[in-house]
């Protein structure tokens, strides 16, 4: 589809549909990278992704749907840290507290490695004028109100995203 304004800067349109810690990273990393390169960037938050617009990001790591999820320990000698611990779903999905454990291990590993926290990435995105659009339909379904989100969040529906995406050079569903 041709861009309505051929002289407009490049544009990235993302859909963030997942609310777990690991899945929350890709849209924010791509958005901040694109905006850093001078691209217009917007993220449409729908379904479980909507919770990423709350002031406090409480995203957890879930073993469900991550059947090959390896886990690394953020402490101990390097050889120990480099071991990939396979997490059998049968055990992990039933173990009480596993999500909190996996979340704290992943957060610590990210911090040790120099990866930004989700809050830092979202602040950076806002600083770079990334548009953050919450899906109205999902808000109605799950009972979210606009004032539960950060004040910079816009609200829109499918047509809002599609119009924005139609003029985008890159569109991704995460």
């Amino acid at each position, binding site marked *: 589809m041709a861009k309505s304004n051929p002289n407009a800067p*490049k544009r990235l349109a993302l859909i963030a549909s997942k609310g777990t810690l690991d899945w929350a990273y890709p849209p924010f990393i791509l958005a901040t*990278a694109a905006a850093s*390169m*001078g691209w217009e960037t917007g993220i449409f938050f729908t379904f479980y992704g909507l919770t990423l617009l709350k002031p406090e990001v409480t995203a957890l790591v879930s073993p469900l749907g991550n059947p090959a999820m390896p886990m690394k320990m953020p402490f101990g000698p390097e050889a120990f840290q480099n071991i990939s611990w396979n997490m059998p779903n049968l055990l992990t999905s039933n173990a009480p507290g596993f999500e909190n454990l996996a979340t704290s291990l992943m957060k610590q590993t990210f911090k040790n*490695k*120099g990866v930004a926290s989700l809050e830092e990435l979202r602040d950076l995105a806002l600083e770079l004028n990334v548009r953050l659009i919450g899906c109205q339909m999902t808000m109605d379904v799950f009972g979210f109100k606009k004032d539960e989100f950060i004040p910079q969040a816009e609200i829109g529906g499918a047509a809002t995203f599609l119009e924005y995406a139609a003029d985008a050079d890159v569109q991704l569903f995460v």
Partner: protein
Amino acid sequence: MNDLILKEDVLLDCTGLLCPWPIAKTTQAMKTLESGQILKLIATDAGSPPDIAAWSRQTGNELLRSSEEGEKFIFFLRKA
């Protein structure tokens, strides 16, 4: 080109930071430069050589030099 002595106007050290920090911080640092001034970036992210080259092509800020010193990657960028 690599024999030229380049002198930076601003130094940005992104040692220990992973993607997207090096390009994000480069973008922020570039805002403080005048056109024609030079930014020296130090990074340890192994993805930074292709990323900084891509950032340069996308933003039009010229990558004057990209080199490696031990575990560090050194970039000189001229603001467009």
